[in-house]
């Protein structure tokens, strides 16, 4: 089926007519593309052929021929034969053409053209005998069927073959046939060639009389035609002819004409060459220009790249600078903040250091002296017991009790202060009636109050409850009441009363003591109490800290000579 189809396609090639072509290969490729499925390979082959890359075409061709169909083979072989010819392998080319001929029995177009090619190739090989025999048969078969203008050169060629074979009779027949056809066709150039060939035919036979007019005719036609080479040959022929018949003057004239044509030819070639060179020069110039432009482009590109890189660098540097700037601003702020922190910490430290020094002074003085006093009192006591002085014993004992009590409360404060400083105070607020706590604290001071005949009025509403931690509120009250008693002279007055606001209870403890001197806007100076003893100020500091820890506040208001008023504010309910 496939085979039949391919055959049908092959039969349908449009060029299967009796027509001679100067170059059949355009048609060969066209027909190949029509019947082959290897369109791409053929297309490639054709392009290479047109570009005259014959070696490459040969390689590809052999590859294609290895696996081609029977229908493709003769056409591919035709191409191969042409390639041999182009490579100068004329003999191989002829053999190839002759081999393919058998395939073309049914394809007159290829047969006629191939035979013509073979004939021409034999001429080129100077095998005139062979060429003539082919041409004779060829003309027999096709002379009537082919148009005269296609026939003329083959008839002429056959004439030339006979001329070379010195078969002058046959040569004369075919050359004159050729001239007749050319005359009919008004082919001046062809006529010029034919006449000159014809003249040579007679000249070879020393039939100068017949030959010379033909040479002249040839020259006349050559002059009419525009082929310089034919004209040159015509002049040369005439120069030789005139020289041989000793007409040197004419010979010289023809020679001059001949040289003129040669020179023209040369000039034309030269001009061509020059033009070619110029063209080449220009091309090379253009190429240089192009390469220059290419270089420029490259340079520009590198410049651009460099610029880009530079820009990137710039961007990078500016980003870096920005970061550094932000960093330094932040750093500066941080430093400033940390400086502030440091200075506040420094103040804190100074304060703590002051507390520490205070602590040392307390330990050194305030604790040492009462213990020393007790030691002394004990000696007095033992001697009083020896003397059985009961009154003295009692008075010493009561004195000792006081000293011990004071020292104990001081120690207690110290301990609380230490806990407070190390944040170990646990605040567990509860709802407590303020009066209950106040009476519990006052209870411990009933002795000193009685001793100093102090008039204590306690006016605290039983309904006023505070929401606070019992122990710490007791510390506050103990210190405030203790101070009030210490700084209030005998027969003085201390009054405690409470007030309830919406969310707070205000406990005021006022005395009619000596009052305190302001040390600065917020602090009172440490002052000697009514016994002439100077306190430490520790108790008040501790009390204020405890008030804060209970979400309250302790403030003092004092006037010299008029007494002191301590105001303790504590929440009455849990704060949100």
């Amino acid at each position, binding site marked *: 089926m496939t085979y039949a189809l391919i055959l049908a396609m092959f039969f349908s090639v449009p060029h299967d007519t009796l027509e001679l072509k100067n170059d059949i290969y355009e048609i060969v490729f066209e027909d190949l593309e029509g019947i082959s499925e290897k369109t791409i390979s053929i297309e490639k082959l054709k392009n290479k052929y047109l570009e005259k890359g014959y070696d490459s075409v040969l390689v590809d061709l052999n590859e294609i021929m290895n696996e081609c169909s029977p229908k493709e083979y003769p056409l591919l072989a035709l191409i191969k034969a042409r390639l041999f010819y182009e490579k100068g392998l004329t003999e191989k080319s002829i053999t190839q053409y002759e081999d393919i001929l058998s395939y073309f029995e049914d394809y007159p177009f290829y047969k006629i053209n191939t035979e013509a090619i073979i004939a021409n190739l034999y001429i080129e090989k100077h095998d005139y005998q062979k060429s003539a025999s082919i041409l004779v048969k060829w003309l027999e078969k096709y002379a009537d069927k082919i148009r005269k203008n296609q026939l003329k050169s083959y008839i002429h060629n056959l004439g030339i073959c006979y001329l070379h074979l010195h078969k002058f009779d046959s040569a004369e027949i075919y050359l004159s046939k050729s001239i007749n056809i050319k005359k009919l066709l008004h082919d001046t150039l062809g006529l010029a060639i034919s006449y000159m060939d014809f003249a040579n035919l007679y000249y070879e036979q020393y039939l100068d009389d017949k030959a010379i007019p033909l040479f002249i005719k040839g020259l006349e036609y050559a002059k009419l035609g525009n082929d310089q080479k034919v004209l040159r040959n015509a002049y040369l022929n005439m120069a030789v002819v005139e020289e041989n018949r000793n007409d040197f003057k004419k010979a010289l004239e023809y020679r001059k004409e001949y040289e003129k044509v040669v020179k023209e030819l040369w000039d034309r070639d030269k001009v061509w060459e020059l033009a070619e060179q110029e063209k080449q020069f220009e091309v090379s110039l253009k190429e240089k220009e192009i390469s220059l432009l290419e270089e420029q482009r490259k340079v520009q590109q590198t410049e651009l790249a460099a610029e880009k890189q530079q820009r990137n660098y710039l961007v990078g540097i500016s980003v870096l600078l920005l970061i550094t700037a932000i960093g330094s601003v932040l750093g500066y702020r941080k430093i400033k903040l940390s400086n502030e922190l440091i200075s506040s910490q420094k103040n804190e430290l100074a304060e703590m250091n002051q507390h520490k020094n205070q602590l040392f002074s307390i330990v050194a003085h305030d604790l040492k002296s009462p213990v020393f006093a007790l030691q002394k009192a004990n000696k007095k006591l033992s001697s009083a017991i020896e003397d059985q002085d009961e009154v003295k014993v009692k008075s010493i004992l009561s004195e000792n009790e006081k000293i011990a009590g004071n020292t104990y409360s001081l120690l*207690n404060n110290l*301990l609380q202060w230490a806990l407070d400083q190390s944040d170990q105070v*646990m605040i*567990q607020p509860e*709802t*407590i*009636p303020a009066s*209950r706590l106040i*009476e*519990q604290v006052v*209870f*411990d001071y009933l002795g000193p109050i009685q001793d100093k005949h102090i008039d204590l009025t306690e006016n605290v509403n*039983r*309904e006023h*409850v505070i929401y606070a931690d019992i*122990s710490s509120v007791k510390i506050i009250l103990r210190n405030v009441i203790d101070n009030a008693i210490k700084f209030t002279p005998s027969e003085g007055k201390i009054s405690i009363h409470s007030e309830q606001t919406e969310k707070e209870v205000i406990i005021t403890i006022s005395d009619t003591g000596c009052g305190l001197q302001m040390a600065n806007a917020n602090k009172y100076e440490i002052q000697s109490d009514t016994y002439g003893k100077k306190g430490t100020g520790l108790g008040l500091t501790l009390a204020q800290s405890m008030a804060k820890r209970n979400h309250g506040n302790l403030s003092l208001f004092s006037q010299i000579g008029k007494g002191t008023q301590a105001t303790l504010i504590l929440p009455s309910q849990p704060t949100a």
Partner: protein
Amino acid sequence: MTKPRILVVEDQEDDANELKGFLESNDYEVTEVARNLKDALGYFYSQQPDMAILDIYLNGIPDGITFAQRIQENPNTARPFIFLTSHADMETFRKAKLTMPFSYLLKPYNQLELQYAIELAIEKFTGDVGTLSTHSHGSVMLDKDLFIKNGSTLMKVPLQEIEYIEVEGKYSSLVTNDSRYLVQQALKKMEEKLIMNNFIRIHRNYIINIQAIKKVQLTENTLYLKNDKPLPISSGFRDNLISKLDILR
């Protein structure tokens, strides 16, 4: 009326004696002074005191806390307690305080502080916070006893001693065979617990102990106590009284 009975757990003899002295002078009965955990638990279960005052460290071991945890395990026999502590063992105490929200006393303490701590311990235990500590005549019911505050002292009145309760506005009078105690508390809150303990309301103003009834004169709407004191029966509570009496007989 009896005195509240307190078990003291304290290994230091001086401290124990001082505490005992304070308690007795303030009208409390000290059932015993225990010096170690084992004794303390033994006394607690055999004597069934109303409350305990505990030193945290007994012979250097925080057995006071262990004791408190033990007696709380059984809610039927659980009783209020107070921790006695000094600064030295404050840290241990803080941990205990977080788990047991009762009362504590910081050494040295005075009588007022002790009294306040006892009141707090009882009222916190019964869930009547503020009843005793903020009122001069508050009362709290603990098991089958009423703890009544009379001024600065705390009295214990067993429910069975109470013949009837007379409501007088904001105050109530608890009447026993020989005394009459004024209580600064509306009895509404206490009524429920009283009714579970053989008390019944017979009038808007009277709740009586059924055991104290001698006879009932329904025709006169009057009830006579064992000491022949007549009390009025209001019609609204009459049927309730009859049904209660029927059940009893």
